[in-house]
C-alpha cells in the first residue's frame, strides 16, 4: 500500500517474514541534469562519511557496528531522464539477536540524524572532510579507466548520447564539474535537494507499519512538487552509424555496440522485446553467446542488455583485437537471424522459461523487491501479478519477435583496440 506522507513524499511498507533483515530505502529523485549529477555523487560520499552527530568516520562506523552491523550506504544512479540518490539502511531483525534492542526505531533515528544534521561549519560542508572526499572522488573517477569493461561501456554511452549532455555524463559525475564544486555551494544545493526532490520510501521486512509511519513523521518532510519531466528518454535516430576506436596497451580488445529500440518499460511490446533481447544476446543460450563464444571460440564474453528506460540495447564483447571485423560480422548476422526467424522454437521456449525464472527469483532478493516497489510507484503499469507476467511472456509469438527485431537499429560502435599492447 502506497501512502502519501505529504505532496511528493510516499511511503510503501512491504510486510514480509521471509528475511532476517529490515531494509529501509529512501530515494531522492530529480530530473537528470549534467549540472547536478556530479554534486549529487559527491554528496553521497560526504553523507556516508560523517555528520554533525557522528563527526568522524569511526564514530559513524562504530554506530553501525553497535546496531549489529547495520549496513548503511548511499548510491547514485540514473534511469531514463531521472537521477536517483538512494539511501539504504539494512538492519538485522532483532528477534534473532540475543537482546531485543528496538533496532528499527534506532535505525530510523540514525537516518534522520545523518540526513538532516550533516557536518556543516559556517553554512558549508566541513572543509577537511569536503577536501578529502573530493580527492577520493577524483581518484575514483580516474580509476574507472582501469576497469576496461566499464570504461568501454562508458565510452559507448558517450558516443551514443553525444548530442545529449545529461545522458552523456556517467551517473557518478565528471571531473571537470567536480573541480568547480565549493563546500558552501554544495550545501546550498543539498538543502534544495532535501526541499525539492521527490522522495520515495520503501521498507521491507517483519515490521509494524504504524511504527514506521510514526518514526517518519519525525522527519517533518515538507510538501514538494513531483517532477513533470517524462521518465523515458528518447532521441532522434542517427542517419549514420557513429564509430570510435581507441588503442591502449591492453591484452584483450573490447568491442561494444549500441542499438536504438522504440519500445519502453511496460509500454506495449515491452515483454515481447524482453524475449527478443533474450534470444539475441540476453542469456547464455542466446544467439550471440552461442555463436560468438561457443562456436567461433572468438570471445570470452558476448552478450546484450536492454535499457527500457532509454530505448537502447547494447552489446558487449571481449575479444582478440585482430578478430574485430569477424566479430562485427557475426554479431550483425545474429541480429539478422532474429529478424529472419532463423532460430528454433526450442530457443524461444527456453528464453521464456528463463525470463520467468529470473522474475520469480527476484522475489527472494530484498534489493530486487524494494527496487521493484520503487519502480512500480513511478511506472504504475509495471505492477502486474506474477501469473499475468508469466501468461504474457508465454503468449509472445515468433512473428512478434521477428517484427520487433526489425526495429532494432545499429547506431554506434566503440572499439578499444588492444593491438600491439602487452601488459
Amino acid at each position: 500500500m502506497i501512502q502519501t506522507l505529504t505532496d511528493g513524499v510516499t511511503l510503501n511498507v512491504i510486510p514480509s517474514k521471509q528475511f532476517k533483515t529490515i531494509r529501509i530505502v529512501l530515494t531522492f529523485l530529480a530530473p537528470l541534469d549534467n549540472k547536478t549529477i556530479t554534486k549529487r555523487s559527491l554528496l553521497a560520499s560526504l553523507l556516508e562519511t560523517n555528520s554533525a552527530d557522528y563527526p568522524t568516520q569511526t564514530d559513524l562506523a562504530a554506530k553501525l557496528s553497535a546496531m549489529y552491523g547495520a549496513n548503511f550506504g548511499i548510491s547514485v544512479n540514473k534511469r531514463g531522464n531521472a537521477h536517483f540518490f538512494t539511501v539504504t539502511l539494512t538492519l538485522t531483525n532483532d528477534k534473532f539477536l540475543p537482546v531485543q534492542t528496538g533496532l528499527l526505531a534506532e535505525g530510523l533515528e540514525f537516518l534522520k540524524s545523518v540526513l538532516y544534521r550533516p557536518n556543516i561549519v559556517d553554512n558549508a560542508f566541513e572543509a577537511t572532510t569536503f577536501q578529502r572526499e573530493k580527492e577520493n572522488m577524483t581518484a575514483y573517477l580516474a580509476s574507472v579507466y582501469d576497469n576496461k569493461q566499464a570504461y568501454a561501456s562508458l565510452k559507448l554511452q558517450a558516443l551514443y548520447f553525444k548530442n545529449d549532455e545529461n545522458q552523456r555524463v556517467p551517473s557518478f559525475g565528471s571531473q571537470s564539474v567536480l573541480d568547480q564544486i565549493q563546500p558552501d555551494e554544495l550545501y546550498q544545493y543539498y538543502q534544495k535537494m532535501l526541499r525539492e526532490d521527490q522522495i520515495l520510501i520503501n521498507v521491507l521486512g517483519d515490521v509494524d507499519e504504524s511504527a514506521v509511519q510514526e518514526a517518519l513523521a519525525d522527519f517533518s518532510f515538507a510538501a514538494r512538487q513531483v517532477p513533470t519531466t517524462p521518465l523515458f528518454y528518447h532521441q532522434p535516430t542517427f542517419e549514420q552509424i557513429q564509430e570510435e576506436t581507441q588503442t591502449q596497451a591492453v591484452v584483450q580488445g573490447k568491442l561494444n555496440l549500441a542499438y536504438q529500440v522504440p519500445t519502453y518499460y511496460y509500454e506495449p511490446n515491452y515483454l515481447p522485446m524482453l524475449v527478443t533481447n533474450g534470444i539475441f544476446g540476453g542469456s547464455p543460450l542466446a544467439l550471440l553467446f552461442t555463436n560468438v563464444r561457443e562456436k567461433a571460440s572468438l570471445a570470452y564474453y558476448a552478450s546484450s542488455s536492454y535499457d527500457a528506460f532509454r530505448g537502447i540495447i547494447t552489446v558487449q564483447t571481449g575479444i582478440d583485437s585482430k578478430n574485430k571485423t569477424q566479430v562485427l560480422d557475426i554479431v550483425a548476422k545474429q541480429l539478422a537471424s532474429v529478424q529472419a526467424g532463423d532460430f528454433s522454437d526450442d530457443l524461444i521456449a527456453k528464453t521464456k522459461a528463463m525470463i520467468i525464472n529470473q522474475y520469480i527469483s527476484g522475489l527472494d532478493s530484498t534489493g530486487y523487491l524494494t527496487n521493484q516497489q520503487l519502480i512500480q510507484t513511478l511506472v504504475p503499469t509495471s505492477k502486474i501479478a506474477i501469473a499475468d507476467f508469466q501468461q504474457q511472456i508465454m503468449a509472445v509469438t515468433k512473428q512478434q519477435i521477428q517484427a520487433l527485431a526489425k526495429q532494432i537499429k545499429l547506431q554506434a560502435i566503440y572499439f578499444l583496440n588492444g593491438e600491439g599492447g602487452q601488459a
Partner: protein
Amino acid sequence: MQVKHYKNLDETLYTDTLANGLKVALLPKAGFHKTYAVFTTNYGSIDSKFVPLGQQELTTVPDGIAHFLEHKMFDKKDGDVFEVFGRYGASSNAFTSFTRTSYLFSATNHVQENLTTLLDFVQDPYFTPKTVAKEKGIIGQEIEMYDDDPNWRLFFGIVQNLYPKHPVRIDIAGTVESIAKITADDLYLAYQTFYHPSNMNLFVVGNIDANETLKWITANQETKTFAPAAPIQRQFPTEAVDGSDIIPYRVIEMPVNRGKSVVGIKGLDQVKQDRSGLVYRTTLNLLFDLLFGDSSANYLRLYDKGVIDDTFGYELNVERTFHFAALSGDTDNPQELSDAIIAILDHAAASPELTADRLELVKKEALGRLLQSFNSLEFIANEYSGDHFGDATLFDLVQIIEQITLTDVKQVAESFIRQAAISVFHIEPKEG
C-alpha cells in the same frame, strides 16, 4: 538423516551420508521461491600432484586442469548442459577455486528434474580430443582477460611472493602454455580420482521438502555404480617453516591511473581441519576488524592522512594446506600504504585497538552481518560446502563468535603475525 534445529538462526538443517559416500545437506527455507543446489568436489587448482585412483605412483598433471575440467563437464555428446537446464528456465553455472570445484543451478520450478540433471551431468564425463582443443581458445581468452585485471594481478602477485613453490601461486585457470598440454586422458585421470562421491558434497537450499528431496537424491545415486571409495593421496612441495623463502618485495608496472599496494601475511602456524580451524579463522577475522576495520583509530588516522581510501580492504584465506591474509588498497603512493600497514602489524598483539569494549563492538557487527547473510541462499550453500572444518560449519558461527575472548584474539595475533611471514607487492602506473 540427521536433523538439527539452530534456534538462534531459526533454521533446520538436514544432513546424511549416502551409501556411496556422498554427503548431502538440505536446508528448507520457508517463503522462498527459489531452490539453489550446489554439487562440490573437494578438488581445486592446487591438486595437481596426486596418486590416480587404482594406481600406486604419484603423477603430475598440467596446471589449470581442475578449471579446464569444470568447463568441459558442460559439454556432452548430445549437446550443452546449459540447454538441458534451460528447458525449465533454470540457470546453471560452476566455479573453481584453489581447493574446490562446484556445479550449481538455481530454479523456481521442476526441482527434481533439475537436481537429476545436476547429478547426472557431473557424474557422466565426456571428453574428446576435439572438444578439448576447442576449449583452449575460450580459456585462453579468459586468462587474458584476467591478465588485464589489476586486482587479479595484485592478488596473485602477493600470493607468488608468499608461496615460492606451493601451487596456490599459479592462476586457477593455469597459463596459456600449461593448458595447451592438457589432453582428454589427463581429464579422465583427474576426474576418476577426484569426482568419486566420497570426495563430494551436495547442498540444496530453498523451496524444498527435505524428506522428498533426499529420496530423489538417494534414488538417483542408487542407479549408479562407483569404484570402492579410497583415500586420495595428494602431495605438495615443502616450503620453509620459518618463512625464509618468502620473497619480501616485488613491483610491476601496468597501464593504470593509480597504483596499488598489498601486504601479505603467510600463516606459518598449523591450522587443523576441524572446529578449531573455524574458530581460528573467525578469531583472525575479528583481529583484523579490530586492527584495520572502519571503526578503528588506525583506519581513521590513515584515511584522514589520505594513505587509504574506500578501496582499502583485507581478506583471509584459510584453506586446505595453506592460509594467508592480504591487505590492499589503491593509492598514489604504494610504499606509504604498505609501510603504514606493516607498522601496525609489527605491534599487533600489543595494539591499543585490542580492548574488551572494542571486541564487543566488532563481535556485534560480525553477528549481525552473519544473520543478514542468511537472506542469501547462494551464500549459505557456497559457504557451507566450501569449508573444510570437519563437522563445524557456518551454522556454528553464532556460538563461535559469542565465545571468542580478548585473550583468544591476542593469542591468534602472536601466532599468525610474524615478521618473517610478511611480504609486499606493488603495482605502479606505467607511463604513456
